[in-house]
């Protein structure tokens, strides 16, 4: 596996990401803004499913999905660029997997809630009592993505290039 990491790290794009004066910082900025839009949208939907701001129609929160999609797109593209710069540092760290697991699980639950809960609310049906717990779980998963993302820097043990 180290051979693969080494090959990526010696690619022109990876070297440019590490050595260009602006490239890494620009990718970091886009990653942060993308994550803020994705998780921000996730937070507001989680709070609403938990029963807060209940006068607002839940199904209309789908209107925030374009902002979340834009954020996810920014986060993925910039994340791939950051990953290309230091693949060994990230991919040898289990915390990187925890970050992805948290964010993907949160995204899948939001998708499921949009298919199940949003039509129920639109039809005037009450949500099941456990929906609040699902909303809270989603909030924890979104914030878990933040925790693992920040811990990446402090838990990496393998650095093949500097």
């Amino acid at each position, binding site marked *: 596996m180290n051979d693969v990491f080494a090959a990526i790290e010696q690619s022109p794009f990876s070297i440019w990401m590490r050595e260009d004066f602006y490239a890494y910082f620009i990718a970091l*900025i886009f990653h*942060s803004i993308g994550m*803020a839009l994705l998780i921000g949208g996730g937070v*507001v939907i989680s709070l609403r499913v938990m029963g*807060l*701001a209940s006068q607002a129609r839940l199904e209309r929160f789908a*209107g925030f999905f374009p902002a979340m999609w834009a954020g996810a797109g920014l986060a993925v593209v910039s994340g791939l660029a950051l990953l290309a710069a230091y693949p060994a540092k990230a991919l040898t760290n289990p915390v990187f997997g925890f970050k992805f697991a948290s964010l993907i699980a949160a995204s899948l639950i939001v998708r499921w809630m949009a298919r199940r809960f949003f039509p129920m609310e639109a039809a005037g049906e009450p949500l099941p009592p456990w929906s609040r717990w699902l909303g809270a779980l989603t909030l924890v998963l*979104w914030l878990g993505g933040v925790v693992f993302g*920040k811990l990446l820097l*402090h838990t990496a043990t393998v650095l093949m290039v500097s």
Partner: protein
Amino acid sequence: MDPIFNPDAIEQWAKDVGIFGVMNSQWGWPIAEIIHFFGICFLIGTVGMFDLRMMGLARGVSMKALHRLVPFGVAGYLLCATTGFMFIVSAPGQYLYNPAIQTKLSLMALAGINMAVFYLTTSRAISALEPEEPAPMRARLIGFISLACWLGVITAGRLVTFYRPPEFWCLWCAPA
């Protein structure tokens, strides 16, 4: 020579009250960073989404109801302010002269003024709107300025480590 701030005295104060020790413990700085980002998530998740709603996104979501989530954004702001203060007093030389921090604080002040304008001129009209009604142009502009400020704050925060050494950027310091 800085005629305004004394970074050594600020750091000594942080040591005296214990903040420096907490921040320089093994997990102090990472935990403060995590709490700082929690604050940003709640800020963008409530105030930022309210801004997007005023700008025309998610038509049909009652702005009056959505505004009830803003206290979570205020709590997020307080988390950010508290941890941000802890960062600065624990390494004042790295932050006080840093153009990224100066920009960040300026954008926060601008967001505060923008918020005051919203509550003084527009919030009543917004509360009276039906969920399907679009926000007036003034509210859209306020929402855009607010969101731009907060995304700018995130951008400036990421650029803190870009400016090294920070002392080089002190505009009010006399040459040593």
